[in-house]
Each structure stands twice: as C-alpha cells, then as structure tokens.
C-alpha cells in the first residue's frame, strides 16, 4: 500500500488541481445559467468535504509508524505542501487581507499594523528551517514531548511538554473550529452550530481513520485548493480593476490614487465632524464607566421615558424593542453593563484611530505601535518555529535534508498566498474609499447593502453625525472574515465566493486536522501510555489516539459553538504561548550541552507561566472580575498577544540558571 501511495502523490495533486479548475468552470456556467448562488456555493462545500473524507478513508491505517509519522517517507515538496496547509489557518488565510485593509501597514501608533503579521508569519519558517527541522527529523521520535523526554531522559519533562502542547494547540484549535463554522454556515446557509458539526465530520473522517498519513495527503490537496483559490481570486480582482491579471502591479498602480483619496477624506469637514461626535461619545462612556451605578440609574430613567413616549405615540414594536436594547436597560449586573460600555468604547476607538489609507498621518518618531510591531514579529516568528503541530511535520520526511527542504517548499506556498493577500487588501481599499465613503445612506453601493444584510454581516454603518452621508469613521468592517465578501465588493462572479470559501475551509480544516492529531497523540502517547501502560501493544496505542481525537474534536466544537471567538486574537495568543513554552527548551536542548532536565522543566514552567499570566490578567473578562485597570497590568505598553516577549527571555534565563544551579548543587 505504501509503495502504491508513493507512486501517485503528484497524480493526486494534479487531479485535485484539474478537478478544482473543472468544478470552478462548471459552476461559472451554472452561475451564468441562473442557478441560485446558495446551490453553487453549497456545491463547493459538499464536494470539498466529500473529497477530503474520501482521501482520509483511502489512507486509513492502524500501523503506528504510518498513523503517527506517515511512515517517515514523505518527499520534501509533498511535506512542504502539507506543512503550508497545516500552517495556513483560518486566521491567516481569511484574516490577513482584512487586517491589512483595516489596520493599515504600520499600525495606528498604538497597535501593530498588518505588516507585523506578514513578516512574523513568514520569517518564522526561516528559524524553523535553520534551527529545528533537521534535528527533530534526525531524532526519529514521534511527538515533541517525546523528543524532549528523550533528550533529557525524563518522564517529567515529557509530561510537562505534553500539557504545554495540549494547551497551545487547544487555544489554536477552538479558533480554527470557529472559523470552520463561519465558513461552512456562510457557504451552506445552515446555522453556525450545524456548520461546525458538518465540517467537523470531514475533519474526523480524515484524521480519525488515517492519522498523519491521511492528514498529509489531505493537506497536500488542501494546499492546492488554498493556493489556487487565492491566486485565481487575486487575478480576477486585478483583471477587474486594472485590466490585467498581475495583482502586485495592479495594487501598485492603485496605491497613488488611494493615497490621494485618503488625504481628501482625512481633511473633509464632514469626516472631522463625525470624529468629533465619536470622541464625545467616548468621553461620555468614560464618565459612565467611572460611575456605573449612578450612570445606570440616569440611563434607565431616560430609556423609561423614551419607551413611555414611544408607546403613547403608538410606535412600532420594533422601535420600542430597539430602545430596550440599551445595555443600561437590559443588563442586570453592573459588571456586565460596564463590560458592554467598554466594548462599545473599543468599537468607537477603532472607528477613529484606524487609518483611512494604509498609515495614520503624522506618525513620526518612536511610538508604542512600533514597540508592539517588533514584539509581535518576535512572538510570531518564534511561535511559528515552536508550534507543536508544525514541528511534528519534520518527522514525516525520510531524511533531515528533506525536512529542511520541505520547510523551504512550505514557505514558498505561504509566500504566494501572502503576496496575493496583501495586494488584495490594497485593491479592496480602493473600493471602500471610492464607492462607499461619500455615498448616501439610502443609496449605498449594492455590495454594501448585501454585506450589511448577510446573516454573517461583514460590514456595518452608523451615521454618527446624522448627515445621511457615509463617512469613513461611520464604517465598521469585520476584518476577521471580510475577505469572504471580496467577490461582491469587486463585482466578480459569485462562483469566486464559493472558490474562496473552499480555500478558507481548506485552510481551517487542514490546520484543525494537524492540531487534533497533535492533541490526541500528546494525550495518548505522552500522557496515558507513558505513565499508565508503557508496554501497551501498538494497535492499542493507535486505537486510543483515535478515540481521544474524536473526543477532543467534539469538545473543541462544543466550546467554539458556545462562545464567540476572536479568531485572530486567540491564534496570536497560541503563537506567544508556543514560543514561550517550547522555543527556549528546544533551542537550549538541541544546542547547549549543559542543559539538563531541571533546566528544561524550569524553562517550560517559567516561560508558559509568564506568558499565560500576561494574557489572562489583561483579558477584559478577568479585569472586570478582579476589578483591575489595564494601566496596572500592561507591561511596557505591549498588547497581551505579545506575551511571548516576556515568556521567551524568562524561559531562556530560567533554563540556563536551572541547569547551572542544579549542576552546582549536585557537585
């Protein structure tokens, strides 16, 4: 079977490429023929999931070497494709374009811009290739905790590393499953919850039956889908806007005109008036947050008067219900009310601080945004090089050299996607500034109306200065998944919506596959069998891994469907946690002979502890519960997602000190 598999990887990939092109052409014809969009998009969803599940079933195995590390026989290009798909998550595939569009290139002077994500996510692969890939492959272990356990000859190190891997991967997994639910429900028109569980069926069929072997082949095909969908979409938008398919050139051609329009908007009196209104509202909210009880009473009296007046004037039920949505009227708990006001303030702040073009004007001199940019790049690079589900892909090639080459291949595919994503952000900005800003509220562009009214709204507009005209500050773009609205914004065929969503689904599914395998293998191999049944037969190991995989998937799905998740926030946190937990111990463990098990334990505990503490203590929910102020808990003005900046140095320091001190005490 293995020999047969080796002979057809490129045939499989070519077949998937040809199938995707054929499917797109057929659905384009169906679209021109007037087939409803829901049917066209739903077809992409069904065909994608069935395709991945069929590959999973075809690659099913119970052989441990195949299940855990794909037989260590994957070629460098194929492993590179699988690594790229594993790494290109919902956040990076769906989110990067929206992030660059909304936050600009270099940020707003407080927060990092989109370039920090772009550089961090690509540069991390250089570190992975230089420092870890070949060494992990050479070790012939099967998980990262297994590698660390053997390096330090310590079950405790393996046990702790397993919990670290489970924590980092779980945070990442919930965000991915949330992304899967968004895309699946958008494509199919089903509810979010049903979308999650249907798409999860595809993930489970693939990873449950065939483990790493099935996941590798599926991810290879998913890489084709991701790259093709992004490149085709970018070329189509480029053709539509500039008349040629070269997206980088099209974006460069559009930029001067975007800059001129941005300057015009920034100095428009109506825009300035809108910003003044928003600033005033923010000041009012500050007063309310400072005196919540008093403000709640006043606000409730106001709402009660308005509701009574509306009822006396026989206002519609909808108008009355709208008045009653005021948080001061709705919320019974003061904590929740303050939370609602803080959330409203955050949205208002985003409206006036985000750049109109791609940078905030007059952003000269060193500022907190640049600190945050550098810190974020540091965390994303080191996190990419230390994410357990990416590191395990180094085990699946035959030789260390192939492991290194596969990293280069992976980076090549990721770079292609990101070049398109950043160019798309520029082209989309042109549509927002030229078509939406300045339009009348009752004569919005058709795409704006559609994006507003969708079940999954990608856009909202609030006329703050009540002049009936859309100003830039009135617009709120939901950047996490705005890219899914590209075909509508740019007036290209709705088939591209299906194609793009198929790419997004592939990105989320492939990452979820890798994460599920990492978590279930850590639970089964590194925790259960290591301590409870060290001599268990291979078949039993595989079966327990499969069962745990299903349990973890269902738990993550339940969690994702119960809580709204900010995909980008949690994914970035996962990078910081992974960097803090694994980077110091891997770096010192591989390259410093003096590192011992005490140092390894201290490096992991201190790095993970500091990083998790910084994220937790700055989370709005924790701050509200513990009555903390952000000014007291933020260090050096850095965002919580940059917690790796503290975790990594502390991990390195404690790793060094722990090793030296334990050696001294022993002597």
């Amino acid at each position, binding site marked *: 079977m293995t020999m047969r598999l080796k002979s057809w990887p490129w045939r499989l990939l070519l077949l998937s490429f040809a199938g995707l092109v054929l499917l797109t052409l057929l659905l384009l014809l169906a679209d021109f023929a007037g087939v409803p969009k829901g049917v066209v998009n739903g077809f992409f969803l069904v065909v994608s999931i069935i395709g991945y599940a069929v590959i999973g079933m075809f690659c099913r195995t119970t052989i441990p070497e195949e299940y855990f590390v794909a037989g260590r026989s994957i070629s460098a290009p194929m492993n590179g494709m699988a690594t790229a798909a594993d790494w290109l998550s919902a956040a990076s595939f769906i989110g990067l374009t929206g992030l660059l569009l909304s936050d600009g290139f270099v940020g707003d002077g407080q927060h990092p811009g989109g370039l920090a994500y772009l550089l961090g996510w690509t540069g991390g*692969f250089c570190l992975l290739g230089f420092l870890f890939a070949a060494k992990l492959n050479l070790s012939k272990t099967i998980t990262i905790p297994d590698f660390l356990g053997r*390096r330090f000859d310590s079950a405790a190190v393996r046990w702790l590393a397993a919990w670290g891997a489970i924590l980092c991967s779980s945070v990442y997994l919930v965000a991915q499953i949330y992304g899967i639910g968004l895309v699946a429900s958008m494509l199919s028109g089903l509810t979010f919850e049903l979308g999650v569980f249907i798409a999860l069926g595809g993930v489970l069929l693939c990873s449950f039956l065939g483990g790493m072997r099935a996941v590798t082949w599926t991810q290879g095909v998913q890489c084709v889908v991701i790259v093709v969908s992004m490149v085709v979409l970018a070329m189509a938008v480029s053709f539509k806007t500039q008349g040629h398919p070269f997206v980088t050139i099209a974006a460069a051609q559009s930029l001067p005109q975007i800059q001129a329009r941005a300057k015009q908007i920034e100095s428009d009196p109506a825009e300035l008036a809108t910003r003044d209104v928003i600033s005033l509202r923010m000041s009012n909210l500050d007063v309310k947050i400072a005196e919540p009880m008093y403000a709640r009473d006043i606000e409730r009296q106001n709402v009660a008067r308005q509701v009574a007046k509306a009822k006396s004037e026989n206002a519609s039920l909808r108008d009355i219900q709208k008045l009653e949505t005021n948080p001061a009227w709705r919320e019974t708990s003061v904590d929740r009310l303050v939370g609602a006001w803080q959330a409203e303030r955050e949205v208002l702040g985003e409206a006036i601080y985000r750049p109109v073009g791609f940078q905030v004007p007059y952003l*000269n001199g060193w500022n907190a945004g640049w600190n945050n940019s550098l810190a974020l790049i540091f965390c994303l690079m080191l996190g990419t090089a230390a994410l357990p589900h990416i590191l395990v892909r180094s085990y699946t090639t035959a030789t260390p050299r192939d492991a290194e080459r596969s990293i280069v291949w992976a980076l090549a595919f990721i770079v292609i996607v990101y070049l398109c994503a950043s160019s798309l952000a*520029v082209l989309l900005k042109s549509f927002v500034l030229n078509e939406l800003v300045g339009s009348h509220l009752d004569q919005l562009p058709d795409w704006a109306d559609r994006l507003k009214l969708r079940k999954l709204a990608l856009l909202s507009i609030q006329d703050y200065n009540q002049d009936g005209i859309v100003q830039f500050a009135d617009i709120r773009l939901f950047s996490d998944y705005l890219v899914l609205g590209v075909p509508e914004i740019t007036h290209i065929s709705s088939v591209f919506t299906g194609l793009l969503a198929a790419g997004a689904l592939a990105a989320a599914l492939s990452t979820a596959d890798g994460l599920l395998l990492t978590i279930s293998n850590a639970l089964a191999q590194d925790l259960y069998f290591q301590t409870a049944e060290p001599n268990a037969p291979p078949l039993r190991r595989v079966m327990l891994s499969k069962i745990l995989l299903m349990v973890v998937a269902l738990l993550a799905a339940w969690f994702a469907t119960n809580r709204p998740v900010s995909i980008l926030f949690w994914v970035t946190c996962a990078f910081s946690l992974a960097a803090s937990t694994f980077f110091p111990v891997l770096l010192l463990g*591989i*390259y410093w002979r003096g590192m011992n098990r005490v140092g390894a334990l201290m490096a992991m505990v201190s790095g993970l502890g500091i990083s998790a503490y910084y994220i937790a203590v700055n989370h709005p929910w924790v701050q509200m519960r513990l009555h903390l102020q952000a000014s007291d808990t933020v260090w050096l003005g850095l965002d919580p997602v940059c917690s790796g900046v503290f975790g990594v140095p502390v991990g390195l320091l404690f790793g060094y000190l722990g090793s030296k001190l334990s050696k001294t005490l022993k002597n």
Partner: protein
Amino acid sequence: MPQPSTAPESEAPHPPTIDVMALPRRALWGVVGLVALTVGSLGLAWLLPDVTLLHFLWVAQAVPVLYLLLAWWGTQDTHLNDDAS
C-alpha cells in the same frame, strides 16, 4: 516524579538519547540575516512613514520573497545532512 519508562514496541527503533550538536555556520548567518532584514525593513518603513508604495513593494512584497531565498540558502549543505546521509 514519574520515572522514565522502557521504550514500548512502537517506539523501539528510536535512539535512547539525543545528541547535542553545534549550530551550522550557514544557519547562524541565516538567523543574523533574518534579524537584519526584518529590523532593517521595518526601520526603513518607520523612517519614511508616508511612503506607502515603499511599504507595499518592499516590506509586503519583496521581504517575504527574500525570506524564502534566505531559507533556501540557510538550509543548504549543513554538516548534519552529510552526517545523516
């Protein structure tokens, strides 16, 4: 503290310990190049905050391609590969 277990059947071929090794020179220079390229590019973007075309063409488009070239260069001919083969 739990004691290290004996290797189970499925893990039998694994080496009992993992050797510490030196960082290949090319990889070391690769890391230096990565830091220099990243900080230099961002520094350029921050020195010229209004030149958006530079941000786009250099930082968003050229630097990721340079990372790819750097990754390719830095992973060539390491002594580890020779040992393994």
